[in-house]
Structure formats: structure tokens, C-alpha cells
């Protein structure tokens, strides 16, 4: 989707603000969000592509305002509800419960013993390579042109690199295709390439001199170039 998350080449966000000696976490709730995200993935509630698309579906103004882990919270909450793990009504009731008890730990809302947990797969992150034996259509050095499209769903072809001419730098093997895997349409594994683009192809006369961008792109995004 052509969302606000697709930031490459946008202007007006100001200078980079670097925090000296930045702590790992800025607030106690942040590692809880990380733990819930990992639990959702490792227990098979959502895959990484659904997770990324969950964040992309945030309201644009909220996306730009939110801290990193607030984006995660928004994305995983949406997915836990959509996947039927958590009900909207019980979630709203719990938010009210903790709103009235700002210092209470999560366990304060729980009565009785915890249930047995569902199986945990710690290898779910970056589990993307599928050795299907698919032969790459393109070889290193081949000229390609990216497709020009504007899908409403998830894609990893950034807006700034659509309809652009590049050169295959290398093939990374056969990888799960996010555009379908984010939407319950299967993994559809296919060759993934690093594609080199000259900055002038991407930014025209505004390009800085002597610059290139390498983007990892699936075969479905690419057409033969000339």
C-alpha cells in the first residue's frame, strides 16, 4: 500500500536527532511489547509479513507521531484481535481496568491459574529461505526494470523504486513472498535479488553525484530491462 510508512525520498522531517548513551529501553512497558510481539510470532498467531502490514495499517497521523514500540503495540493489538486471540470487548474492559489502576502489574487482572501454553517456535524470525529448487530468471549483471504498481495490500517494492531501471547485483536464493504471505495467500517462494539502481534513475536531476541504492527485490517485482 502507498502508506505513510513508505518513507524513502520524502522530505520535511528535519534533522536526525541522536540521543547520546541511549538506553536499550526508554520505559518499562517497551520490553513487554517486544515480548508480546515475539510470542505472537513464535506461537504462530501471525507471521512477520502480517506483523509489518499490521503496522502499515495504522492511521497515518498516528504512525508519524508514535514511538517505535507504540507502533508495534498498535500493530500487534490489531492482529491479536483480527486473529481471534483477543476479543475487542474484553480488551476494552481491560484497558479501563488498568486505566483506573495505573501502577498495577498485568497479573493484577488475572484470577486463577494460567493455562498451558501453546508450542513456541523461536526460529520464526527471518525464517524466509525456501529451497524449492526454483531457477532464477535473471543472472548477475542482467538489466531489469521494476514494475509500476500501486497495490492496496502489503508490498516491499518501495514507491521510489517503481518503474525504475536497475542491474542485478546478486541473487540471495529463494525467499517467501511478503505480498502474498501478509494476506493469507501462501508463501509463494521465489528468487530474491539485490538490485543496483543509479541515483539518477531514482531521483533524476535532484540526485547527488556518485551515488547508488541497492534494494532487495523479489522476482515478481522485476521485468527484463533493456
Amino acid at each position: 500500500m502507498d502508506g505513510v510508512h513508505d518513507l524513502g525520498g520524502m522530505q520535511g522531517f528535519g534533522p536526525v536527532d541522536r540521543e547520546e548513551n541511549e538506553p536499550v529501553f526508554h520505559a518499562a512497558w517497551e520490553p513487554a511489547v517486544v515480548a508480546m510481539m515475539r510470542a505472537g510470532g513464535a506461537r504462530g498467531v501471525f507471521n512477520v509479513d502480517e506483523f509489518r502490514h499490521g503496522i502499515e495499517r495504522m492511521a497515518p497521523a498516528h504512525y508519524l507521531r508514535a514511538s517505535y514500540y507504540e507502533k508495534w503495540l498498535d500493530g500487534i493489538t490489531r492482529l491479536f484481535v483480527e486473529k481471534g486471540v483477543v476479543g475487542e470487548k474484553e480488551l476494552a474492559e481491560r484497558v479501563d481496568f488498568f486505566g483506573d489502576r495505573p501502577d498495577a502489574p498485568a497479573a493484577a487482572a488475572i484470577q486463577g491459574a494460567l493455562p498451558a501454553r501453546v508450542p513456541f517456535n523461536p526460529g520464526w524470525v527471518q525464517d524466509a529461505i525456501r529451497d524449492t529448487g526454483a531457477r532464477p530468471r535473471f543472472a548477475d549483471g542482467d538489466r531489469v526494470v521494476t514494475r509500476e504498481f500501486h497495490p492496496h495490500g502489503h508490498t516491499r517494492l518501495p514507491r521510489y523504486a517503481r518503474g525504475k531501471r536497475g542491474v542485478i547485483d546478486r541473487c540471495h536464493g529463494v525467499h517467501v513472498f511478503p505480498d502474498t504471505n501478509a494476506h493469507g495467500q501462501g508463501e509463494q517462494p521465489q528468487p530474491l535479488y539485490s538490485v543496483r539502481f543509479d541515483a539518477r534513475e531514482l531521483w533524476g536531476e535532484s540526485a547527488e553525484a556518485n551515488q547508488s541504492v541497492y534494494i532487495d527485490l523479489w522476482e515478481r517485482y522485476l521485468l527484463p530491462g533493456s
Partner: protein
Amino acid sequence: MGKHHPNVDAYVVSRVRALESLLLEKGVLSPDAVDRVIQRYESDTGPMIGARAVARAWTDPAYKRLLLADATAALRQFDLEYQMLVVVENTPATHNLVVCTLCSCYPWPVLGLPPTWYKMPPYRSRAVSEPRALLAQMGLEISPSREVRVWDSSAEMRYMVLPERPAGTEGLSEAELVPLITRDALIGVARVAAAAR
């Protein structure tokens, strides 16, 4: 907390606790999962394995060739199994810079958690379109004669920069080099200095 997070909103905390309590009740979240995340990222991630691999590459030419050709094999020397890393080398002709414009992909296993600036719009928007101006604002001038190569991490592959070894460090051992190598140099937004700051 602090000037970077002035609005840690009570509503966010309520939403976190609410979801956390429901996921505990439904068996999705382990009672010790949050403590394990804190332990892993606050205690176990440093010193960065990425810095140790770079220091070894600077002192062992065969290791450097391996790191650039097959980072997965090279990282096994540090007891890390990581299939998805590509290491790109800075040279007098080339400067490399890593970004993720679509989200915030970052090589956590070798660099730890990403800094906040890496995840926010100012860096993600400009790194691909005006990297020299961005780097200059961050204190790093790149000669016009060097090509700037930006790696936009759009898939599950992750990128790490092998920075240039600074002059004046010729007599240092691998172990003495490790503390000079900063996270920022491995992202490509800083040079390695000959003495630790």
C-alpha cells in the same frame, strides 16, 4: 522519559497491561517472557558481535575474505548462527550506508537493538535520496570521489558495513581494536576513530 519521550502516555501503558494480561491468561505469553527480553537486550547483547567480527577481519586477511564472501560461515567463529547477513566493505572508492525505508529492519543479532534515530522518519526518508547531505548533518563528510552505496533492507537479508581501519592502529591487537568499533560505524554513519571517544 527524557527529552526524547516526553509523552509516555498513561493510555499506552493501560493498553500494554491490558493486552499483556489477556495474553498471559490465554497461554500466549509466558510469565517470564518480559524479563527474558530485558535480560537478552540489556545484558546479553553487548559487546557487539559485529565489532568483534570487524576487528578480526582487520587483523586476519583470510577472515576478512570469508566475512565478505560468506558472513554466515564467518560468524560461526563467534558461536552465532545467522543465515541472513551480508557484509559490505568501505574502501577509498566506496562508502556504504544501511537503512530500511519501509520499516526498521536491522541486524539485531550482530548489532543489538537499533537506536531510535534509525527507526524514525528523518533518517529513513533521506538516506536513499540525499545520503551525503544526511551524513554531513550527522558529522561525516564523504569525498565526492567516493561512491555512496545505500543498502535499503527491504527483505529479510540484513546488511552490516565493514568500515576502514583507521590510520594509527597498526600496532593494536584484535582485542584492542574491538572497543574502537562503534555501532554507528557498522551502520555507515560514522568513521572509526583511532582512539575510543
